[in-house]
C-alpha cells in the first residue's frame, strides 16, 4: 500500500518536534562566523560578503518572512500536526516556493531531515484538497498524459540517440547495465545525454537505454504529487527490473531512484538494481589509473569552478548520514566515520577536476560555498516550473559566486542545474560558459585511455554502497 503524505508527516513527528527554532539553518557555515573567505563581491544580484556565515536559504532570501526560512516551515508542520493550523492556500503558498535544496538539513545539529518534512508537508497539503498551483497542475497533467513533464512525445524520447548514431543502445537486450537518461536530458539538454552515452561507448561499456523509461517522478515527489510520482516509480521499476547496474547523468533522477523509491516502495521491498552517477565511474577509473586526459590548448589556463548539485551532494550526504545514524549503536564514536564518508563522497567529482587540472591545465578554483554548504542553483523542488523568476534569481546568485572567483567555466553534473545556471548566465550576463564535467571531457575530446575497463569495472558499486 502506498503511503500518504500525512502518514509520512506523522512518521516524521518526532523529527519535527526536535526543532528548537535556533535558526542555524539560515546560513551556510552556520557554526563558523569568522571563517576566512574571498571577501566582498558586488555581483548582479547585489553585494555578498563571502566570509563567515552567509545567508543560504534561497526561499528565505527571496521572501524574507520567517515562514519561508526552513525553521518557519518546520513550525508550520508542527502546527499542522497539533491542529493549530489547517491546510489552506496560504499554507501552500509558503511551503511551495522552497527549492528543497537541503541546505537547512546540512546545518541542523539536531539532524532534522528537513527536506523530507517539507516534501511530506506538501504531499499532505495537496491530499487535503488544497489545489496545486497552476503551473504544477500543468506539469502533473502533462506527465500523466505523456510520461514526461515537458510535453514531449513518447516516441521522441530517444530521438537524440538515433540522431547521434547511438541508436543501437536503445533496448540493447543483452546488456546488464542501463543508462537512465531522464526527461531533461532527453527533451531539453540532449548534449548531456549524447556526451554521457558517447563516453560510455568510448569506455567500451555494453549498456542499454530502456525504451519504456518514463519520468523518474522527481518533480512530483518534490511538489507533493506523490500519487503521480508513485505511478511513475512503479512503471520504472517494471521497466528496469532486469538490470544490475543503473547509471545516471542527472542528479535529480539519481536521487529519486536511490533515495525516494525505497522510501515510497512497499515496506520490506528493495531496489532490484544498484545505482550510480556516471561521474562516479570516471572518478574511479582515474583513481585506478585506467584513464587520464589529453592536454588541450583551448582549455589550458581557463579558470574552472564546480557547482555541487544539491541532489548528488547534500541529498546523498544527508541520506548517508541518516542511514548511518539509524544503524549506529554508538553515534558518539561513529560520528567521525560519518563525517569521513561524507567528505569522501564530495571528493568524487573533485577527483576528476583535479585530474583535469593536472593533465589538461585548467585552473580549478572552488567557490566560497561548497560541498555541504554549497548554494543551490534554484531549479529544484518544483520552483523552476512554479516560480521561474525566483528560480533564476537564485541561479544568478550562484553565478555571482562563480564570478567572484573569476571562473571562465562553471561546471556541474546535473542537466537541471546546467539549464538554470545557463539561463541565468545568459539572462544576467555573467559571461561564463556553463557545462557538465563529462560534457567537457567528450566535447573537447580529452579522454586518454591507459587501460580498457572491463565489465566488472562498470559493475563496481558506488562508494555510497561500500561499508
Amino acid at each position: 500500500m502506498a503511503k500518504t503524505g500525512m502518514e509520512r508527516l506523522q512518521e516524521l513527528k518526532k523529527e519535527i518536534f526536535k526543532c528548537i527554532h535556533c535558526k542555524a539553518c539560515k546560513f551556510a557555515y552556520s557554526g563558523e562566523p569568522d571563517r576566512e573567505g574571498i571577501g566582498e563581491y558586488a555581483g548582479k544580484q547585489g553585494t555578498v560578503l563571502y566570509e563567515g556565515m552567509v545567508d543560504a536559504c534561497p526561499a528565505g532570501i527571496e521572501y524574507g518572512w520567517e515562514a519561508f526560512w526552513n525553521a518557519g516551515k518546520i513550525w508550520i508542520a508542527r502546527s499542522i500536526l497539533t491542529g493549530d493550523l489547517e491546510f489552506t492556500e496560504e499554507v501552500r503558498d509558503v511551503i511551495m516556493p522552497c527549492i528543497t535544496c537541503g541546505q537547512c538539513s546540512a546545518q541542523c545539529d539536531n539532524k532534522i531531515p528537513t527536506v523530507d518534512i517539507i516534501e511530506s508537508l506538501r504531499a499532505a497539503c495537496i491530499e487535503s484538497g488544497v489545489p496545486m498551483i497552476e503551473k504544477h497542475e500543468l506539469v502533473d497533467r502533462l506527465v500523466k498524459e505523456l510520461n514526461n513533464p515537458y510535453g514531449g512525445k513518447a516516441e521522441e524520447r530517444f530521438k537524440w540517440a538515433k540522431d547521434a548514431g547511438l541508436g543501437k543502445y536503445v533496448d540493447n537486450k543483452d546488456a546488464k547495465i542501463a543508462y537512465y537518461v531522464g526527461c531533461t536530458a532527453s527533451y531539453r539538454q540532449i548534449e548531456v545525454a549524447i556526451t554521457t552515452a558517447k563516453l560510455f561507448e568510448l569506455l567500451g561499456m555494453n549498456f542499454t537505454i530502456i525504451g519504456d523509461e518514463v519520468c523518474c517522478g522527481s518533480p512530483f515527489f518534490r511538489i507533493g504529487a506523490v500519487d503521480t510520482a508513485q505511478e511513475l516509480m512503479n512503471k520504472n521499476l517494471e521497466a528496469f527490473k532486469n538490470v544490475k547496474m543503473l547509471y545516471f547523468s542527472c542528479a535529480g533522477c539519481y536521487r529519486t531512484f536511490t533515495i525516494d523509491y525505497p522510501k515510497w516502495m512497499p515496506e520490506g521491498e528493495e531496489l532490484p538494481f544498484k545505482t550510480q552517477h556516471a561521474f562516479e565511474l570516471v572518478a574511479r577509473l582515474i583513481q585506478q589509473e585506467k584513464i587520464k586526459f589529453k592536454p588541450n590548448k583551448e582549455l589550458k589556463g581557463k579558470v574552472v569552478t564546480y557547482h555541487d548539485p544539491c541532489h548528488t551532494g547534500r541529498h546523498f550526504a544527508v541520506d548517508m548520514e541518516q542511514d548511518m545514524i539509524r544503524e549506529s549503536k554508538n553515534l558518539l564514536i561513529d560520528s567521525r566515520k560519518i563525517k569521513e564518508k561524507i567528505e569522501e563522497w564530495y571528493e568524487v567529482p573533485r577527483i576528476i577536476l583535479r585530474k583535469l587540472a593536472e593533465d589538461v591545465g585548467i585552473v580549478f578554483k572552488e567557490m566560497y560555498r561548497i560541498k555541504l554548504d554549497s548554494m543551490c542553483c534554484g531549479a529544484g523542488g518544483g520552483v523552476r516550473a512554479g516560480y521561474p523568476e525566483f528560480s533564476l534569481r537564485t541561479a544568478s546568485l550562484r553565478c555571482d559566486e562563480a564570478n567572484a572567483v573569476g571562473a571562465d567555466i562553471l561546471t556541474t553534473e546535473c542537466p537541471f542545474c546546467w539549464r538554470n545556471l545557463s539561463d541565468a548566465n545568459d539572462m544576467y550576463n555573467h559571461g561564463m560558459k556553463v557545462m557538465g564535467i563529462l560534457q567537457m571531457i567528450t566535447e573537447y575530446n580529452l579522454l586518454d585511455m591507459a587501460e580498457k575497463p572491463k565489465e566488472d569495472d562498470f559493475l563496481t558499486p558506488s562508494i555510497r554502497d561500500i561499508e
Partner: protein
Amino acid sequence: MSYKLPDDKDLEAMVGIVGKEYATNNKAITASYLAKSVMGLESQIPDIVVRPKYVEEIRKILIYCSAEKIAVSPVSAGLSGGFACPTIKPAGVLLDLSRMNRIIEIDTENRYAVVEPGVTIGELWAYMHKNTPDWAPPIPDGAPPASTVMGDAIDRGFSLYTSSVGPQGDNFMCGEIVFPNGDIVRTGSWALPFAKPFYKYGLGPDIWSTIMGSQGALGVVTKVAVKIFPHPPYKTVIVIGMSNPYDMQDLTLEIGKQEFGIAHNTVMVQGGNYPLVMARWPKDKVPHDYEFFKELGISKWWMNWECWAQTQEELDYVTNRINKMAEDFKKNRAKDPDAVKPQELHPKQIASRLKKPNKIAIPYSFWEAGFLFITWYTPWNECAHFAENYCATMEKYGFPPVMWIASIERCRQAICMPIICFDSTKQSDYEKVQDMNRETTEYNLKQGWLNYRPDPYIHAPLTYSQAGMYWKYLRMVKKMFDPNMIMHPGRLALP
C-alpha cells in the same frame, strides 16, 4: 486583563505604518514564529506580525496598539523559544525586529559598540573579527550565531567574558527605548543629546536597569551600547576533572578568589558533568554508563578555564598558577583527591572550545525531541548543593541529569543550568517537566536561590509570592511605563 483581538482594520493600520510587505495576518506566516522550546514551553501564535525598520515606525505601532489595547510582543531574533512568543490569547502583534540590523558604531578607544535589535551575535563577531580584530563583543558563548546582542541584553545573559568581568547585564551601557506612549527615552549618558554612551548611571536613578531583564514587558529597545573587550592573541583552555560537584566548586572558588592577575584572565569558567556530553546524542545510540566516558578520558565532573592573555609569558603564568593551585587542592583539600586531575586536550579540542560563537548547545534535542534550559543563580559556594539536588530530581523524574555551571564575576555568583532533555511529542513528558520544575523551584526558593529568565507559570508566581514588596513595586514600574499593559503581557507574570 482583556485585550482586543486584532481585526482587518488593525492590520490596515499596521500596513499604513510599515507598508504591505511588512505586516501580515497570513496564518501560515504567523504560525511560523511559534516556538515551544529552549526557555519556555507555553506560547501562542500571534495574530499579526509586523516587521518595522525604523524607530518612528515602532513609535506609531506602540501608540496605536496602546490606544486599541492590542498586546505587543517584541522579538529580536526569537531564539529564546517560547519566551519570545506571545503568552496570552488574543496574542496580538508580534514585532519582528530583525530588519533593524545596523551595526551603528564601534569605538575601540571608549570600548563600546552600538547596535540595533536585529544584529546577530554571529554578525557582530564576524564584523569585529574583520575590522577590529583586537577587540571582541561579549557574546553569549553557547547561544547560536543567529541570536542577537539585543535579545541577550534584555535577557541579561551569560557571555564569554562574564566569568571575568561580571554579570552580562553590566556590559550594556546605554539604551534607546520606545515606550508604549510613544516616548523615546535614551538612558545613562545617552540622555544628553550629544553624549557618547560612556556611562551607564547618568542622571540620577538609573532607568536602564529596569529594562535589563524586562523581557519585552516594558518597552521596545531600539539601540543598545555594549562594552567591547580586548581579544588578545594568546589563548588556551585548561580542564581539571574531578568526581563530584563539591571539588569542582571548591577548587574553582579558590582560583576565582585570587582575582588579580589570574582570575581576570580566565574569561570563561564553565563546567559540568559527563551527561552534558552524553545527552548531545540520541538516547538509544550512546552508552549511558559512566565507564564508557571514563575510557574517553572524561571525568564525572570537570571545570574549564578559558584563559586569554596579551603575551605568551602572561598566559604561561596564568596556566601555571591554575595548575599549581589544582595540585595543591588535590593534595590538601579535595574530597576525592585521586579523581582530581588535568584533562589533556588535543589542540583540535582546544581550538574547538575557543571557537565563538558556536552551535554547541543546539543538539540537546537529539537525545529525544526537545529540551528546556532552566537556569538559576546561586552564590558560588552553593552551586554544588544545587547541582547535587537538581541532578537527583532530574533522575527521579526520568530525565538525564545534565548540568552546566559557570562562574560569574570570579565566582561571586554561579549560573547553574540544568538541561531538561525530553520527548516533546508526549503530553506526559510535558507534565513531568512541569512537575519537576515546580518541585525544584519550591526547594530552590527555600535556599534563597534565584531563577534567571523566570517562566510566567511556575518561577515568577512562586518567586513573587515570597517577595511581595518587590512585586508591588515591579507592578508599579510596569504601570508607569506601560499603563495599558500591552507589552508582552503574561511574560514575567506581568501584569
